[in-house]
């Protein structure tokens, strides 16, 4: 069914709007607890340096959060507008996690952010501090619920196909909410967010340290970010590996594509460094790899065998009938490497920076500081490539093994979807630039004058001395 141009445009619109949204999500997930911790430290110690960091990173968090929320709304509508067949198919399943996301996460997130922002000085201090932590809880829960819906698309569980309508019906909520894939994918996303936020804080602090301005507070931020970032990087290595093992079991085709393994290989399967996959010939025109490494990574043994895409294709044809069940291997192979490479680059650089700045040293090398600033981009690229990898690897399915992407679209006119996609590209380009400019301005301006009030706080006595 369906016009292939319509399918392509609808996919492009979903990918574009979702990836744009995900430019802001990781930073919120990671920066929110960062600000909450700083505010807690301020509450505990009364140290003015923490207050300055709360003000500074709080304002960056808000600029980012505003556009993150605004760009997320479309998803709730787009499922129905562009993917109505899909919506009918999964509505019974998606209902619970999405309703929970709305009622248990979005409301908490937005209400308590409002209370934190405007409630300083109006609420008792302890209660006020708890509002930022509730905000963090809201953002993390929101990620959990939406990932449980996404995990259903990757690996459907807890359902039965309705004999009358042919759509999926929920039979086991616990299975949908708590399947291992959901839990691990959530951890992977949260740790990815924390990593992005720490590298961001690290880079912003590096900007000021390079110019030797706000040294006292920025040094604190730099160190805190470095320690959390290195820990997050190490943790991500483990979580990513666990997720990979689950994926090999649930979506072997995705993982075979990630490694460009066409024919079942092993023992001692090589891990590819460079591959030029030929989708038509179902083989690689070129493949350079490290001997035996893939067997070790994928199966934890030298004699491990890795199932290839051609064998899986035969299995699927038997199971689902004729058709091509192989995702785009070129995208899978390189996005997988880009995800890991960019994702860990920030953490690796922080290890180096930790050594360079040991015992309070401040390197004089301009290059060191410049790289420390530019490294901010790395986790962003890692996060985006991660989504490109996992969603591309699911193809041709929208719900794995149950519903194909090409069968899931709304029967709209191609022109209409082209116009809406163009609309999104233009609008997002404009607001993306505005957001970037504002973030840059606020980051460069640095922490405000210590006398300036916290967001929502009445003016300090000292600073309002001149006022009537």
């Amino acid at each position, binding site marked *: 069914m369906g016009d292939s141009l319509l399918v392509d445009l609808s996919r492009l619109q979903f990918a574009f709007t979702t990836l744009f949204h995900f430019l802001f999500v990781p930073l919120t997930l990671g920066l929110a607890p960062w600000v909450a911790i700083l505010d807690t430290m301020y509450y505990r110690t009364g140290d003015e340096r923490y207050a300055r960091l709360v003000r500074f990173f709080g304002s960056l968090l808000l600029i980012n959060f505003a556009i993150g929320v605004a760009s997320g709304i479309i998803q709730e509508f787009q499922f*129905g*507008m562009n993917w109505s067949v899909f919506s009918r198919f999964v509505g019974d399943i998606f209902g619970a996690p999405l309703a*929970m996301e709305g*009622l248990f996460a979005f409301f908490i997130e*937005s209400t308590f952010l409002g209370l934190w922002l405007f409630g300083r000085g109006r609420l008792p201090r302890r209660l006020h501090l708890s509002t930022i932590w509730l905000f963090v809880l809201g953002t993390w829960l929101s990620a959990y619920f939406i990932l449980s819906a996404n995990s259903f698309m990757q690996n459907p569980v807890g359902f039965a196909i309705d004999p009358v309508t042919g759509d999926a019906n*929920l039979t086991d909520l616990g299975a949908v909410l708590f399947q291992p894939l959901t839990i691990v994918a959530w951890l992977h996303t949260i740790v990815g967010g924390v990593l992005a936020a720490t590298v961001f804080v690290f880079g912003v602090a590096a900007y000021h340290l390079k110019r030797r301005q706000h040294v006292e507070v920025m040094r604190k931020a730099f160190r805190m970010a470095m320690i959390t970032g290195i820990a997050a990087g190490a943790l991500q290595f483990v979580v990513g590996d666990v997720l990979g093992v689950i994926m090999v079991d649930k979506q072997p085709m995705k993982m075979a594509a990630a490694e460009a393994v066409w024919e079942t290989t092993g023992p001692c399967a090589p891990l590819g460094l460079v591959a030029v996959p030929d989708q038509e010939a179902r083989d690689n025109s070129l493949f350079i790899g490290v001997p035996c490494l893939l067997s070790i990574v994928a199966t934890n043994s030298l004699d491990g065998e890795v199932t290839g895409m051609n064998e899986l294709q035969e299995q699927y044809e038997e199971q689902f009938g004729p058709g091509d069940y192989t995702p785009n291997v070129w995208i899978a192979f390189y996005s997988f490497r880009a995800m890991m490479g960019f994702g860990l680059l920030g953490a690796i650089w922080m290890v180096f920076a930790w050594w360079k700045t040991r015992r309070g040293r401040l390197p004089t090398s301009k290059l060191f500081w410049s790289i420390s600033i530019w490294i901010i981009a790395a986790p962003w690229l890692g996060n985006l490539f991660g989504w490109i990898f996992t969603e591309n690897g699911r193809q041709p399915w929208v719900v794995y093994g149950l519903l194909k992407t090409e069968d899931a679209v709304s*029967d709209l006119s191609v022109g209409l979807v082209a116009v*809406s996609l163009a609309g999104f590209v233009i609008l997002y380009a404009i607001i993306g630039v505005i957001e970037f400019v504002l973030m840059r301005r606020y980051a460069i301006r640095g922490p405000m004058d210590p006398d300036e009030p916290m967001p929502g706080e009445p003016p300090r006595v000292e600073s309002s001395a001149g006022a009537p």
Partner: protein
Amino acid sequence: MNLPVIFFFVIAFVWSVFVFLEGFDFGVGMLTRILGRSDGERRMMLRAIGPNWDANEVWLLTGGILIFSAFPTWYAAAFPSAYIPLLLLVFALIIRALAIEYRSKRPDHRWTQAWDNANLVAGFALPFLVGVFWAGMVHGIPIDGDGRFVGDSLWSHISVYSVLGGLALVAYSLAHGAVFLSLKVSGPLLERVTVTARGMSLITLALMSVFAVWTWLAYADDAIGATMAVLTVLAFAIVVMAVYAGRLLLAFWGNALGALAFMVSIFAALYPNVLPSTIDDGFTLTIAEAAASSYALTVLAIVAVIGIPGVIAYQSWSFWVFRKRLTKDTVDAGHY
């Protein structure tokens, strides 16, 4: 009563709360540009909705999600049919959010003016599109015997009736926003918002009355339809009288009643269907046909029973925390 019918009215309630809470946010969004003569006045108006507008918006998302969750077939037919109104709605929501959050990030007149203009346009578009969406639904869309939308998405929600519904909600938002501001602001601005509240509540009464009578005669020609029309007119008449009597808190709650009457009369007109087919009456999608499985609805019922009262409780608390009338000093000090 069975679960699908209960959910049908739960959804009506959620959309009512959305119209009630976001109604004044949209109104304030427009009035900021229209009535605010200085940056201080404009910031004061935005401050009035500052702590709450974002959470108010979640009622809209929840309203949409619950249609998806409880009635997947309804969602899958209605949303593609309203492609253009919903697309513009999303654009307007994005612009509105950034207009509120970013306008005071730079002390540059052209910057703030541009965002205030954007907020004016978005504040108009949002209630208008919501009205068009729901009135279009009452009017019906082309769906086939399988409950699938088969029409042309460009015009399927546009009719004189749906445009009237949209304009009625725009007027409502302006009146409601002005009443809300009259409870929150101080200084010379207070006089201006009170005058606006008078004029706009009269216009709202007129438009809402025409819309209510039309809904009754054309789409709900029975005792319930008549009752809902009377209730709608009555609610907005109370608002007008209260505004003129200077009893603005009463007017504010009158608008809450009005929002409820407006949304429930739409749902009552649809009942026992969720979506009438303009192709063939036999294709009309009923509540029973569109509903999710009973297991899924049971899960949703538990989520709703815990979630909705909980949200109402802490959101009310938040409103209570920020109940004080704003003064120039509080606005100068804070965020925005």
